[in-house]
């Protein structure tokens, strides 16, 4: 059984490390608006090992449950903070005295997000894309367009974050239905959280929000330009019915459905609902 280890400097974020030698994948779980690491993702923690015969990649995956303040902190700031966490995990910078025995880096990164967590993840990816692009353009001010594209491609291809797999459950990327609270009432605790949240953050998650618009536009443009960058494209999984977020995604992205599970149930595996275990994969 995996035993949780809190990650210093990141509040209630914790890791569940694989006991297999040479874990090659880091899976980072990012909860949504008003969520919490265990409450949102409950049962992933225990079931991944129980079902490792059916879903063998979990046996060599380390799991990281990220905790963050989702009700009062703007999306852009949360994307920065998540980026810091991802760097710490990827470079194994949190285990001062207990570093991995095999001294190997991870080969793959999976970012699993729920609701607002999906927005924060996509913003992190776009920030990274724009940062790499700016760095390459600044370093090569005089090269022609073709050489620039080649330099960019090389830099983007070698970035671990841009090569990550995005697995988004009911992402709020196309907006949240804050105009009607009825959907929220199916989880009364979340409803109370939403009422007490900062109206600024709520507004950021509205369908017409400039924060969501810019993210959509930027991601779609980047994907059109560099289609091979894995993290710029995903196929989100939505519960049916979901009355909290709009079940829609970016241009060309196929939607997957999980009938019978609502906004909150879609990301919770249990003995009779294994789809989430199957969905978070490479």
């Amino acid at each position: 059984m995996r035993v949780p280890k809190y990650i210093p400097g990141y509040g209630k974020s914790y890791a569940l490390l694989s006991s297999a030698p040479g874990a090659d994948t880091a899976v980072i779980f990012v909860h949504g608006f008003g969520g919490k690491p265990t409450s949102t993702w409950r049962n992933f923690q225990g079931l991944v090992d129980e079902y490792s015969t059916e879903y063998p990649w979990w046996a060599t995956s380390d799991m990281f449950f990220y905790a963050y303040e989702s009700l009062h902190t703007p999306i852009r700031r949360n994307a920065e903070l998540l980026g810091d966490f991802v760097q710490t995990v990827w470079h194994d910078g949190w285990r001062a005295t207990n570093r991995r025995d095999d001294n190997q880096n991870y080969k793959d990164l999976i970012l699993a997000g729920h609701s607002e967590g999906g927005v924060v993840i996509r913003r992190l990816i776009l920030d990274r894309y724009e940062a790499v692009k700016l760095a390459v353009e600044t370093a090569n001010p005089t090269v022609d367009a073709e050489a620039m594209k080649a330099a960019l491609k090389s830099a983007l291809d070698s970035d671990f974050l841009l090569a990550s797999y995005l697995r988004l459950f009911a992402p709020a990327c196309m907006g949240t239905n804050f105009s009607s609270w009825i959907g929220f009432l199916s989880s009364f605790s979340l409803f109370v959280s939403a009422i007490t949240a900062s109206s600024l953050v709520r507004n950021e998650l509205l369908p017409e929000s400039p924060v969501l618009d810019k993210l959509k536009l930027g991601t779609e443009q980047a994907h059109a330009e560099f289609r091979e960058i894995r993290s710029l494209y995903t196929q989100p999984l939505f519960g049916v019915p979901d009355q909290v977020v709009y079940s829609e995604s970016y241009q060309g992205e196929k939607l997957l459905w999980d009938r019978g599970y609502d906004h909150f149930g879609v990301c919770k595996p249990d003995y009779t609902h294994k789809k989430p275990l199957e969905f978070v994969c490479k």
Partner: protein
Amino acid sequence: MSDHEKDRTDNLEFFESAILDPALKAQAFFDFDIGETDSTVSDFGAIEAAHWAWLGVRIGYLERMDTQELISSSKGIFKAWSNLQNRQIISPEDRWANVIQPRKSGQLALNKELFSPSLKIGSKTRVLLQNAFQTLLLLTAENILDDDSRYFLDSIGWTGNEEWRARSEGLGLPRRGSVQQIGSGLANVLNYWEEMDSASRSVEHADLNFAYIPEQKRDISVSFSESLAPSAAVSNFTQNARAILSPRFNLGKVEIVDRYFVLAGEFVARAREEGPAWLDARRRVFETLELLILYAGGGTNMRGPRRRLWQLFSKGIASLSENDKRSVENYLETLSEESLEEEPPEDLSQP
């Protein structure tokens, strides 16, 4: 060190960082005797930590001797016990309190007799329980041990009506806390109940090999189970977890339960929309709250007319008619064993 020993050392380290340390820090922070700034809930938290340790030993998640040593050396637990006893909130005769016992000298000590592993649990069941136990600790750590939850629970469960109104409605100038913390704490507590109940049902379901079982209401009473019957290991475990977490909420008092229904009703009213969808959603929230309070506090406190709770929820305390107020007073006065018999469900469609 064998793998098994290493696992149990890691488990104890996790228990300490998730539950014991935060509980002791909160207890120490509030442990100064200047009246209104004390925190009953922080004292409960410290003693709960001893209970969780006990349950962990019982299912073999924690090693007995090391755990006893850790708890015995945690002075805040004993101070918390004294505080609650001095305020006559617990007494040494209570089962919940007897995880700590006064010696003849008057000094307090851990009740080590309780700390025996239940050896008869089969290995498959043991794994199931240990996984569930770890989940319950994580849920407790992330929902209940933070400042907002503590402030909310101290306010709703352990203050008089005037102080509660001041804190929940932003009246007067309370010395600490905010109305926003009341909302945030309520959200945490509801989430905690939902998740703890659901995690418990999940392990119970797995124990029955996923046979179909109708969703059942929890027992009316919340009490520890001392049974060692292997066949009842899972139900004993979930029953004990419920018994551990329950006292901090003080839901044995009718007026505290009422506060939850009034507060929840006020929040639901903010979602008001014209039409049947909202009316149905409101009723579902009411029924969910009933079940959660049953889980966390038992049902003896909800035996009054259900219509009254619905009225509190849908219209607030001010809405009670003089007749209803009188009937509540009469009900409270005449509350006796006879009156605790189950009432047939009432029709809620005519509030």
